[in-house]
């Protein structure tokens, strides 16, 4: 039997592989803030007040281009809408937690910690200390993110883009995806989500292709399972 502390550290250790891919992204974001002539306190404020990498990078680019505030805010919201689905997905795990704890979980959740947590749930549905696993994974990712921003802001783009280390992120998500492919309905959901993302992400504005692709995948999986049920009836 393991305790909360062990689960926290197990969560932290489990995300180590993705840090290789996350670090260069954080460095690029840190450098982008410097490039946008944001001051130290300003970039510290932005790094500490929100954890949502892709939208933050977009916000900094728009801010640097003197875009009207409403457009910056709308862009960030559009990019972050997928988090509401993670929020729905995580709700059950946090049922017994206080409002403050749930708010902190909402603050610190990222694509990465969500993915690792749901894969852990898929592998060990009985894990009653899953919230500690989530916390360990999330804190580890947030700390790495902040460290990368600090390096990028102060030292510039120190990680050569030629190494393509960003490729480590889809590689990790890929192996996290495998346990979720049990059942034909979920395979169809994953396949349609992937195809929709390949078509839509490059063409739809404000990164909204990603959200539309996720919804497409969810709907295709549900449609398949309801057609299947009707045939059985």
């Amino acid at each position, binding site marked *: 039997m393991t305790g909360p502390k062990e689960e926290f550290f197990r969560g932290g250790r489990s995300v180590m592989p993705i840090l290789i891919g996350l670090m260069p992204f954080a460095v690029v974001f840190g450098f982008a803030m410097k490039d946008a002539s944001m001051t130290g306190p300003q970039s510290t404020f932005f790094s500490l*007040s929100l954890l949502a990498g892709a939208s933050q990078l977009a916000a900094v680019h728009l801010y640097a281009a003197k875009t009207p505030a409403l457009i910056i805010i709308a862009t960030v919201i559009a990019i972050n809408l997928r988090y509401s689905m993670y929020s*729905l997905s995580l709700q059950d795990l946090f049922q017994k937690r206080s409002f403050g704890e749930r708010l902190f979980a909402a603050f610190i959740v990222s694509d990465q910690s969500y993915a690792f947590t749901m894969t852990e749930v898929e592998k060990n549905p009985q894990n009653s200390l899953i919230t500690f696993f989530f916390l360990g994974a999330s804190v580890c990712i947030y700390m790495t993110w902040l460290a990368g921003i600090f390096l990028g802001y102060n030292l510039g783009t120190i990680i050569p883009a030629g190494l393509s280390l960003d490729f*480590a992120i889809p590689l990790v998500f890929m192996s996290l995806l495998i346990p979720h492919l049990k059942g034909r309905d979920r395979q169809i959901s994953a396949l349609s989500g992937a195809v929709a993302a390949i078509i839509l992400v490059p063409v739809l504005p404000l990164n909204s292709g990603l959200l539309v692709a996720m919804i497409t995948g969810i709907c295709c999986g549900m449609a398949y399972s309801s057609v299947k049920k009707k045939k059985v009836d």
Partner: protein
Amino acid sequence: MYYYLLFAVIALSSLVIKGLFLCFIPPHKIPPFFEKTLRYIPPAALSALVAPSIIYAKGAEGMVISSPRILAGGLAFLVAMKSRNIFVTIVSGMILLWAFSCFVPF
């Protein structure tokens, strides 16, 4: 001052989205339809995150189709299915990408 106001609004609105169902909409207020989506959120979300970053490389002029990425990503997926191990998948995927980048020029 404009800066802090703007970025505080950004942080707060994002927190509301991130906590929408965790903090603000209680389980009994969620329509039953949403419960059926739960099973599909992880596979749909993960594959939608993965697929574009395997097919396209981010260049100066936006997203371009990258054959080294497609080849390395496709083979890495087979490795991921066989090995079920994240480290093995990363190491083989990165080595394949570097190798293909040397031999496949676009």
